[in-house]
């Protein structure tokens, strides 16, 4: 039977299938809260991370394997996990009405938003045309195509460092370009990069344009490096952070901070009754935005929702 378009009202709908949403699902199931989980990227963005090695108990695991173990763990308890993109959420007659791509509808009493963030793009001319022709947002997916070539990574966060470490084992040359005066990634990753002879870290520089018609040929910096502002490169990996996916929250009147992150209390409740949020989308956990904080926020949200439903 089609799970969509029925009269059923789930006690809880979790929107988002990353660590926050799936952690919430695990806890909700264990509390006995009937629910459904809906999201288009099973396991979330962590599935595109090279390696997870800072989650307690997981010394080292590929991001994709980790994300799939999250899905399998949540699925084990029996809640439906629907691989669909949510396109709209509204409140009608006291229930949340969640519409998915293609028109299917789910109704719920409570709503947990765990939709994470979306990668930032540089916003340069030809960036979208060169996607797949040198420009990439996923080093683990595409690094392989740049074996023994020259690549550039943009960013100064842990994702950028992870991409650079991964690429340093494949490419002949890796240049990491960051606009700041000092990188923001963990010292252990910085140390690895410093020790790789094929990695240059270029600080205080911005990529201001992309060169190449059918494929990327070079990037242009706003300051010269080794005497030239044009860096020939075969691949460009953009790791400049992400912005919260809060379109639904805005439509529902959920309060957000100036960066667009959903304001939550310590219990993961928002300002709108019945709506909770967890993971990278919130202003919680001091905006640390790690897998471990997303999982914790999901667990707390499930506990809060369980208590609210019991009232």
């Amino acid at each position, binding site marked *: 039977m089609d799970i969509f378009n029925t009269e059923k009202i789930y006690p809880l709908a979790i929107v988002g299938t990353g660590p926050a949403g799936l952690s919430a699902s695990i806890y909700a199931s264990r509390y006995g809260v009937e629910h459904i989980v809906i999201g288009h*990227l099973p*396991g979330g963005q962590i599935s*595109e991370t090279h390696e997870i090695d800072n989650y307690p108990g997981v010394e080292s695991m590929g991001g994709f394997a980790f994300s799939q173990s999250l899905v399998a763990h949540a699925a084990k308890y029996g809640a439906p996990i629907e691989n*669909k993109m949510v396109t709209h959420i509204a409140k009608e007659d006291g229930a949340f009405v969640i519409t998915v791509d*293609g028109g299917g509808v789910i109704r719920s009493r409570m709503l947990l938003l765990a939709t994470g963030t979306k990668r930032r793009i540089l916003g340069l001319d030809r960036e979208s045309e060169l996607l797949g022709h040198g420009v*990439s947002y996923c080093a*683990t997916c595409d690094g392989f195509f740049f074996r023994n070539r020259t690549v550039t990574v943009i960013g100064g966060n842990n994702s950028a460092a992870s991409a650079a470490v991964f690429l340093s084992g494949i490419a002949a040359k890796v240049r990491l370009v960051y606009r700041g005066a000092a990188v923001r990634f963990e010292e252990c990753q910085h140390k690895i990069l410093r020790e790789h002879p094929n990695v240059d870290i270029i600080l205080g520089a911005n990529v201001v344009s992309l060169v190449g018609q059918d494929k990327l040929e070079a990037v242009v910096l706003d300051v010269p490096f080794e005497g030239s502002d044009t860096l020939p490169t075969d691949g460009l990996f953009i790791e400049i952070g992400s912005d919260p996916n809060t379109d639904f929250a805005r439509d529902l009147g959920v309060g957000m901070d100036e960066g667009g992150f959903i304001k939550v209390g310590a219990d993961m409740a928002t300002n709108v009754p019945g709506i909770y949020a967890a993971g990278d989308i919130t202003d919680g956990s001091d905006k640390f935005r790690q897998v471990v904080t997303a999982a914790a926020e999901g667990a707390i949200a499930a506990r809060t929702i369980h208590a609210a439903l019991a009232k």
Partner: protein
Amino acid sequence: MSQVFNVTDATFEAEVIKSDIPVLVDFWAPWCGPCRMMAPVLEELATSLSGKVKIAKLDVDVPAHQALAMQYRIQSIPALKLFKDGVVVKEFVGFRPKEAFESELADVL
């Protein structure tokens, strides 16, 4: 039984280039998370679009397939290329959900 079929360097010419109907070729690799996420989407599309388009997969991690990956300038996967009469008429890069992708394909089929 799956309607998505695997192509190789040996069968590409006959099954893609000389196909009577359009063929969507998924250039993928086992170590690519988003590629594996596309797999169920492509299975569903192969059924819903049966007769209009065939859906094939080419594993670019196989050494013998890398010449085809280079020929079609694959630098980011999943790369989905729609072949009509032997030539690429549309390409899609990256994971996309079923309904959105079906709609994008409908515009060019």
